[in-house]
């Protein structure tokens, strides 16, 4: 089908492709694209028919054969660039930055370097921008540079099962290709592998017919940085700052990657610095072999063909995870084969038997130590750094498996503060209440900005009964609350709904995990809200008592001779003790904390941070976490004239 479509387009003037309208439907998946292509074949055919002037013999097998030839991946993607996230000028800018930043972070982490990423966007013309992204990573060996950046589907990530941001090795080359097509300018790469190595600069174009890099220039250059890679692409794009923009993307990257420092130079000349929140790198991820439950028959047959093992027993044990000799013996027995069967003797029907035996075998779940979740603490560091809220909590679920692929779900919630009015507060303005919760989604730490509604994680949010946790929500909608919900899926293979990597496919296992994590966070939020409500109620009560105390005192005084002042004092004292909960807001830190609490958030909850309402900025997370995720205690030390989180105070107090 795809071949046909391309063949029909091959005869088109290449100029057409350059002037293609940039705005394709953003949601177009592979199927939609194919349908579009098919439509254009039909119109091409009818045109040729008319010009012929008579009913023609449409085609012969021979004439068709003349047109049948290999198409290159690059060519295919030039035409289907929406599949890669280049549907329109706005999105093109985002995708270019995204691919470059993802590569930088992956490279740094793999090399064990704390990432420092510089992102420059310079405006060249009304709709022309130059995107330059530089990292402090390990750099790329000179010979590899042209292939990595000038050839689609070339990379280290496609062939392995390992948790990383990029998966296919398409992204950055596609961005370069887009830039080349729209501006004619080649992609420029400077890379240096170490302080003693020379920096190499390449200017590359891509030969779309052959999917091959086309080296325009190659030279050594002087740079002032010790190691890393700088990619620079000029492209036709538009810059904006609202939702789904580069600005939002980098903001979200900073939240999910607190170990990275990102310096962003947007076109307007300002500099936005996302400082590092932690010096701890995520643990290195391990590559794993596929688990038998996660493969399909075709994959099995391909593996049989490609393996270097010659005997079936060895094949099963080396190419799969969780297949022990005993298990392998059982499987081959089940398939009517032996451990000694030659791998190359297995024909398709036998392969199918083997496949069934594999699926029927009782296997341990795949290893899960290959995942590197952000961790509840990391999420809290990221969220407190990037979101000004009142309450933060995070949950990291244990790893589980979908279709043989281990994955792990993490959820964080930020609530209140500058996100909007909280109806559980006393003095809230009705106008501020009408805010909808915002969902920020990540797959392997990469923010997902598009196709929210199609994403399994989003559905899990709308499926959750937030009413149970004190929020208002209409059925099937996001809760109406000043809240940000962060959802992270970490997996060796993220099941995206399309190549654009925008939405996570709706696997029951995934949705269930997200829902469980959301419920846990929701319960914690609920306990905060209940407490706030109680506090509000009690302070209302105290108001009532105080209001009536004078009346009662005056009435009693009118009846009998009493000591008015003493009577009033006694009543006030009683009123205070009856509404103790209202005092929670009167303690000297301005926090809702009872003296007996020792978990740092006053709620007795794990992995939760509560920030005093009038606090100017979120607490510095280094201080917050200096005794672990749930640091304890409070001391009344002020610094920089702002109130501090309790854990921070403890640290300072200790230092004294």
């Amino acid at each position, binding site marked *: 089908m795809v071949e046909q479509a391309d063949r029909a387009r091959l005869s088109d003037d290449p100029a057409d492709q350059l002037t293609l309208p940039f705005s394709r439907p953003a949601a177009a998946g592979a199927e939609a694209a194919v349908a579009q292509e098919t439509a254009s074949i039909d119109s091409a055919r009818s045109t040729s028919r008319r010009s012929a002037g008579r009913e023609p013999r449409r085609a012969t097998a021979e004439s068709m054969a003349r047109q049948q030839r290999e198409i290159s991946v690059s060519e295919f993607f030039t035409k289907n660039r929406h599949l890669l996230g280049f549907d329109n000028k706005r999105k093109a800018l985002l995708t270019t930055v995204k691919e470059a930043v993802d590569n930088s972070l992956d490279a740094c982490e793999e090399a064990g370097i704390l990432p420092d990423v510089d992102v420059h966007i310079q405006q060249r013309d009304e709709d022309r921008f130059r995107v330059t992204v530089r990292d402090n990573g390990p750099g790329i060996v000179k010979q590899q540079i042209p292939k990595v950046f000038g050839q689609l589907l070339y990379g280290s990530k496609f062939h392995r099962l390992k948790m990383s941001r990029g998966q296919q090795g398409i992204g950055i080359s596609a961005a370069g290709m887009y830039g080349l097509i729209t501006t004619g300018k080649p992609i420029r790469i400077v890379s240096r592998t170490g302080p003693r190595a020379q920096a190499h600069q390449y200017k590359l174009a891509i030969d779309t017919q052959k999917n091959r890099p086309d080296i325009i220039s190659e030279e050594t250059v002087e740079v002032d940085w010790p190691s890393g890679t700088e990619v620079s692409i000029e492209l036709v794009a538009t810059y904006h700052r609202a939702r789904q923009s580069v600005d939002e993307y980098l903001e979200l990257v900073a939240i999910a990657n607190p170990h990275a420092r990102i310096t962003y130079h947007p076109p307007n000349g300002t500099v936005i610095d996302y400082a590092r929140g932690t010096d701890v790198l995520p643990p290195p991820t391990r590559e794993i072999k596929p688990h038998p439950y996660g493969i399909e028959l075709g994959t099995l047959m391909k593996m049989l063909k490609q393996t270097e093992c010659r005997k079936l027993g060895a094949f099963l044990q080396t190419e799969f995870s969780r297949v022990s000799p005993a298990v392998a013996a059982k499987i081959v027995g089940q398939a009517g084969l032996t451990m000694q069967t030659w791998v190359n003797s297995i024909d398709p029907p036998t392969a199918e038997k083997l496949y069934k035996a594999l699926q029927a075998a009782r296997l341990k779940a795949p290893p899960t130590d290959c995942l590197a979740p952000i961790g509840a603490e990391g999420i809290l560091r990221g969220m407190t750094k990037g979101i000004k809220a009142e309450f933060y909590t995070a949950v990291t679920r244990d790893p589980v498996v979908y279709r043989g692929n281990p994955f792990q779900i993490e959820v964080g919630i930020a609530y209140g503060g500058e996100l909007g009015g909280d109806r559980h507060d006393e003095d809230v303005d009705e106008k501020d209440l009408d805010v909808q919760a915002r969902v920020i989604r990540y797959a392997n730490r990469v923010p997902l900005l598009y196709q929210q509604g199609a994403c399994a994680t989003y559905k899990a949010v709308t499926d959750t009964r937030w009413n149970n946790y004190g929020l208002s929500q209409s059925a099937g909608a996001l809760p109406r609350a000043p809240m940000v919900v962060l959802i992270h899926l970490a997996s060796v293979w993220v099941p995206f709904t399309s190549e654009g990597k925008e939405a996570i496919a709706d696997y029951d296992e995934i949705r269930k995990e997200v829902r469980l994590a959301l419920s846990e966070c929701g319960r914690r939020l609920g306990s905060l809200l209940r407490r706030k409500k109680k506090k509000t109620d009690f302070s209302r009560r105290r108001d009532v008592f105080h209001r009536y105390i004078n009346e*009662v005192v005056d009435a009693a005084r009118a*009846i009998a001779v009493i000591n008015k002042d003493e009577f009033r004092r*006694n009543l006030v004292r009683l009123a205070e003790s009856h509404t103790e909960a209202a005092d929670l807001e009167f303690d000297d830190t301005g926090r809702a904390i009872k003296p007996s609490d020792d978990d740092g958030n006053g709620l007795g909850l794990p992995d939760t941070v509560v920030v005093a309402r009038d606090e100017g900025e979120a607490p510095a997370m280094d201080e917050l976490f200096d005794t672990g995720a749930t640091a304890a205690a409070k001391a009344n030390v002020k610094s920089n004239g702002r109130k501090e989180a309790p854990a921070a105070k403890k640290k300072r107090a200790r230092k004294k």
Partner: protein
Amino acid sequence: MAKTKTKPTAPERSSKRKSDAGEKIKALALSVVDQAERSADPSLDIPIRALSNVSFNPKTRYIEMGGSKQSRSFFNFGQAKRFMQTLLVASKCKELVDAGKTASIRQIYYMSKHTIKGTNEKTFDDQAESDPIIEDLEVSIDTLREELHVFASNRGNLAGPITLVDDGNTLDCTRMGSAGYAVPSIVEPDAVQFKKCEAKFILHVEKDTVWRRFHEDRFWDQHLCIISHGGGQPARGMRRLLHRMHHELKLPVYVLMDCDPWGYYIYSVIKQGSINLAYESRRMAVPDAKFIGVSSFDYERCGLTDDVKLDLDANDVKRAKQILSYPWFEGKKPWEKEIRKMISNGFKMEVEAMINKRLTYLTEEYVPMKLADRKQWLD
């Protein structure tokens, strides 16, 4: 209107009671102050005025209030305001008692109503809030409304051969004009005294219009009786006066009500007292009062026509059954027959139904017939 007039002597009239009620209010306030001092929640114990806390005493034959009390605590969020209101009303009553003045329950409402300092909130929003507070106060310090110097509006009239002294004025109730003697809210012996009485019995009718029929026909003259009405359910003044005339002048009381559940209930209030004011039954009930009509058997007995029937609705039936289950009706066979007959009739009748026959039928034939035949009375 009035025959003679002497200066009222209010202060000396109630001097003894004054100190009594005043002391009780004072004790109440001091107990609150004391509780606060002992760090106890200031609270008032208020006897419950509901069916659950009343019982029918077969010996005395009236409704008595039980011992159940409800604590009204200041630091109970739901009760704080009423607690404050109770003390406020108490202080106003104390003021009245000390000054020797009286005030109506509406005046008490206005006296106690003000805006709480620093708020928009009023101490009382409605008289409906203050009226029950006054009753609460009465029962919690075991004092009568009169002793608190509080009165309700006049309701009920009477006429007949009796001479009263009211507020120092001597009144001959045969010569009170077409409206008769308006019965005041407070008819205690220190306010109203009986000077002379030639009546042999009292005929109490349900409402003003019927009473006017009897008055115009000078029924009291022909039968040498007192005719009275309470304008529906009689207020405390009327009931207290009936009680006093019955006990002090030994006048039997005959009650003529509409033939409907409401009429039955009014009769029972006169006879045994009400649930809400059970603590007053002792001073108000007339256990010997007799119900002489209108009975549901009178339709056939008097040969009435369809024209007088009023449909009995579901509510009436429900209420009738409820009345039948009250301990003071329960087990009384004639009453059971009467109420069941009304339900099976499916209609109710007003006293005025008798006039359907002839204008004078009610006063000249029906009531004399009823009074003459004890067997038709219901007890």
